[in-house]
């Protein structure tokens, strides 16, 4: 969700900074008023911020995408400390993340604050309040807040990117395409964030109801029918009719948002794409005397049929892969592991899970395919194509044509084989995943918490640049970031070279660790080059023929534009790295104080900085303790663990915030201006 440094053009960076500044200012005002009434709120907000920061470093597995991601956290923060304060927290977290990880950026800070901070907090908070008012339990209200907040964050990001990367008249279409691209990974993640938020709240209600009432999350409902018990299953079984209604409403709500988003995205993407496709590209090509070839697979003659074949192959492959992997390890059971907890049972999956596995495989296969196809459908030149129903395809006279067309058989065969192989790999992987053993790879993301401490250590190290006054560095970097956005690629390339040189020679960061830190930015840059290459009209360099898509071209102008933008992004990120790795955060915050940034913001930042390390350590300890008592927990069990960890982290931060407030008071903290 973090938009990387340099992606947004200067005018959009500035435009998003305005609402972000307003949001942060309003948050500061609100917090100042609340602090006057209840002074302990300040430390509470900062420590919750540190806890939410730590929570957002907890990797949550996304089974469909086959990867891990982390919750946005702002819906939960908004529920706990209020949406206005949550905007503040998001602002400070995003600043720290930009400097620690080069994750996000300073010129894109405004856009990121608007999406994660303002939209995430308020959408989540509203969803929570409304569903509470409608009589939902804490869990379901939290679920609604988490999932809707998460989705709305990504929708906003898509809109921001659409406006920034596409010409204005095409922005809606671009945003739709991006949202469609986000959906396959974001939809399950939104559900997981919903479960996480709801789970944390209901665990909190069970473990420490006093905190909930202390936070003003009123237990009006709980007073009527006791504190909510932890766990969805319990609620479903014992919740009665009202709960079922609420569950239905929540599910329908999420579904409606998903479908509406999808339909909207599809609707805006199937309009005419001015500037590319047959309308322009092919015409230009014809003018150049290079007419486009007849496509191998033509949508008009039924390439959806191919899609169906492909999907079938994937599903079959997945089932076969699953079974083969299962047979290889000697039986249907999972590999020997710790004795299953709770309901006795044989080691490994329950029968229900095993029976559900093929269904999951099929659904997952479909979603993965969708993930691959959807952006293609959205971004590719879709001249007059539309999705047809299976019946139409089968009835289509050109069905035969597809098979008899030039190379049609070969294409069909290749597509099916590809589908089968992909399915096999997926089934194999899913057996490992769901049948109790974790695949051996660890994603670099898992080490994000490690990055916090190494980055910080690096920043405290004395180097030629550490000695320079932070105020000067902030000013220079701010000017350079601005210039980077407006001055064109030559300056950006020069900046990139200078920053990389300074990073490795003066700050003495190893090349490898520079590359690792820039990995997300490199990925974004590659994406930008491809995106621009495909969408900017111009002289076609190559015409690409892929199964399922009509031929599309990469234009020279597009590639150049993409490369320009990539250089800008990389230069911006390297500038941030240079600043972050040569200046300890407290020095940076003090410098910001000199620039008249409100003292409350600085104080919150300092407190958060102090406690982030403590909470990251605590998260790691809790995680280790959990793993030691149940290694290789499958994701759905792990989810329960995450919920209780999240709740514990919030409890600890709440209690600590009370003690920190006492400690501040005892040393005259209330006399401070």
């Amino acid at each position, binding site marked *: 969700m973090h938009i990387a440094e340099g992606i947004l053009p200067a005018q959009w960076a500035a435009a998003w900074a305005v609402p972000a500044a307003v949001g942060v200012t309003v948050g500061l005002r609100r917090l100042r008023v609340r602090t006057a009434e209840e002074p302990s709120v300040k430390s509470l907000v900062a420590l919750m911020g540190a806890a939410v920061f730590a929570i957002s470093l907890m990797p949550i597995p996304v089974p469909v995408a086959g990867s891990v991601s982390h919750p946005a956290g702002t819906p939960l923060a908004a529920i706990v400390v209020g949406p206005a304060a949550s905007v503040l927290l998001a602002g400070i977290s995003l600043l720290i993340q930009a400097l620690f990880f080069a994750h996000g950026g300073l010129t894109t800070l405004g856009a990121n604050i608007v999406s994660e901070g303002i939209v995430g907090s308020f959408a989540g908070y509203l969803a929570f309040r409304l569903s509470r008012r409608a009589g939902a339990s804490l869990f379901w209200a939290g679920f609604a807040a988490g999932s809707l907040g998460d989705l709305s964050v990504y929708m906003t990001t898509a809109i921001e990117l659409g406006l920034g990367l596409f010409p204005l008249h095409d922005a809606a279409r671009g945003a739709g395409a991006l949202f469609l691209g986000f959906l396959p990974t974001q939809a399950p993640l939104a559900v997981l964030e919903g479960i996480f938020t709801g789970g944390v709240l209901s665990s909190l209600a069970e473990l420490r109801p006093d905190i909930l009432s202390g936070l003003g999350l009123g237990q009006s409902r709980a007073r009527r029918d006791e504190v909510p018990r932890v766990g969805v299953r319990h609620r479903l079984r014992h919740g009665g009719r009202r709960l079922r209604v609420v569950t239905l409403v929540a599910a329908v709500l999420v579904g409606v948002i998903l479908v509406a988003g999808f339909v909207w995205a599809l609707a805006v993407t199937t309009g005419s794409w001015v500037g590319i496709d047959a309308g322009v590209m092919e015409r230009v090509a014809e003018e150049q005397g290079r007419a486009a070839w007849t496509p191998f697979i033509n949508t008009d003659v039924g390439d959806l049929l191919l899609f169906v074949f492909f999907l079938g192959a994937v599903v079959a492959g997945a089932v076969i892969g699953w079974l083969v992997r299962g047979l290889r390890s000697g039986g249907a059971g999972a590999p020997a592991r710790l004795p299953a907890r709770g309901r006795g049972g044989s080691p490994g999956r329950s029968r229900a899970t095993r029976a559900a596995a093929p269904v999951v495989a099929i659904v997952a296969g479909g979603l993965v395919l969708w993930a691959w196809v959807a952006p293609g459908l959205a971004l590719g030149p879709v001249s007059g194509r539309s999705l047809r129903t299976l019946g139409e395809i089968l009835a289509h006279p050109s069905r035969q044509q597809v098979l008899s067309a030039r190379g049609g058989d070969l294409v069909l065969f290749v597509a099916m084989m590809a589908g089968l192989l992909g399915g096999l790999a997926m089934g194999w992987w899913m057996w490992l995943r769901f049948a109790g053993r974790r695949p051996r790879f660890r994603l670099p993301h898992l080490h994000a918490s490690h990055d916090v401490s190494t980055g910080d250590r690096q920043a405290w190290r004395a180097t030629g640049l550490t000695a320079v006054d932070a105020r000067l560095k902030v000013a220079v970097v701010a000017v350079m970031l601005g210039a980077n956005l407006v001055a064109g690629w030559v300056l950006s390339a020069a900046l990139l070279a200078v920053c990389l040189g300074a990073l490795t020679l003066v700050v003495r960061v190893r090349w490898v660790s520079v590359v690792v830190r820039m990995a997300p930015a490199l990925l974004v840059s590659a994406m930008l080059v491809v995106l621009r290459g495909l969408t900017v009209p111009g002289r076609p360099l190559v015409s690409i023929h892929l199964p399922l898509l009509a031929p599309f071209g990469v234009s020279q102008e597009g590639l150049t534009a993409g490369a320009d933008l990539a250089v800008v992004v990389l230069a911006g990120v390297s500038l941030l790295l240079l600043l972050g790795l040569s200046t300890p955060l407290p020095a940076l915050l003090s410098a910001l104080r000199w620039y008249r940034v409100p003292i409350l913001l600085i104080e919150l930042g300092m407190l958060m900085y*102090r*406690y982030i390390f403590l909470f990251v350590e605590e998260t790691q300890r809790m995680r280790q303790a959990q793993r030691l008592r149940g290694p290789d927990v499958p994701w759905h069990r792990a989810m329960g663990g995450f919920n209780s960890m999240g709740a514990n982290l919030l409890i600890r931060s709440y209690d*600590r915030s009370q*003690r920190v407030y*006492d*400690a501040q008071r*005892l*040393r005259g*903290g209330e*006399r401070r201006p």
Partner: protein
Amino acid sequence: MMHGPWGSKKIDGAAVRLEGAAFVYPGGVRALDGLDICVRPGDFTAVMGANGGGKSTMLKLLVGLLHPSEGRVLIDDIQVGHDTFNEVAVMVGYLFQDPNDQLFCPTVAADIAYGPENLGLREAEVERRVEWSAKTCGVYELLDRPIHALSYGQKKRVALAGVLAMGPRVLVLDEPTASLDPMAEAALMRLLKGLNEQGLTIIMATHDVDLIPLYAHRIVLLRGGVVAAEGPLNDVFAEGTHLESCDLRLPRITYLFDIFCDETTRPLTVGQARKELVRMVERGQLDLVPILLPRERGGAA
């Protein structure tokens, strides 16, 4: 020799009095009941008792973090209360059990300076106090370090430096030696003893019975929120039953003497035990054979 932030070697310790103080937690748990305790200026008092005996609650009453449900708490002649919180905070320094609660600034120097800055002191004076208390607590070399890079023992000393920089007349410590290694523990206690000798009143909660006789003058024993015993160290420790009733025990060296001497001689520290042994050997009173080899003695009889 340590010099206080006021430029003299003497610290003007304050007296602490609890008069019928009781405290009831919101849940209805009566943590303290009718405490009458008097600590004279310059005393080194240990508040002892089992976990949950009311030690921490009592210490919090002394600084005004909690307010007594009944009775009152006086520091010199100032009654601890909402109106006098800031006044009392300057007089009484409070060291939290977990230094992570107390250290909320990003760097060591910033944290030690936090208190003096809030007192509205001039910059030079703030610097002088930071330097003095950092040197006193042995953290002068750490001043520019970020807090999260310190070890637990270092954090503890920095937290103490932050409290001392306020220039307190009474120091209240909640289990200051918990989770410290033996050397750090000894160093901390020596530091406290040095401050106490300059006149600082010290009240510390602990259940380390082997450590306390080395340093404390007076003991307050709490059991279930009431005073089980109070008085000079030797009086309270003379009766092992007092300690045992509070889920504590006699120092190990005292046990050893109980085994082979009559109960009239009760050394509480290794130093006292050594003196006692020398005395007994000189008088020819010490006959270890029947104690160490009781079976042979039984056989001979």
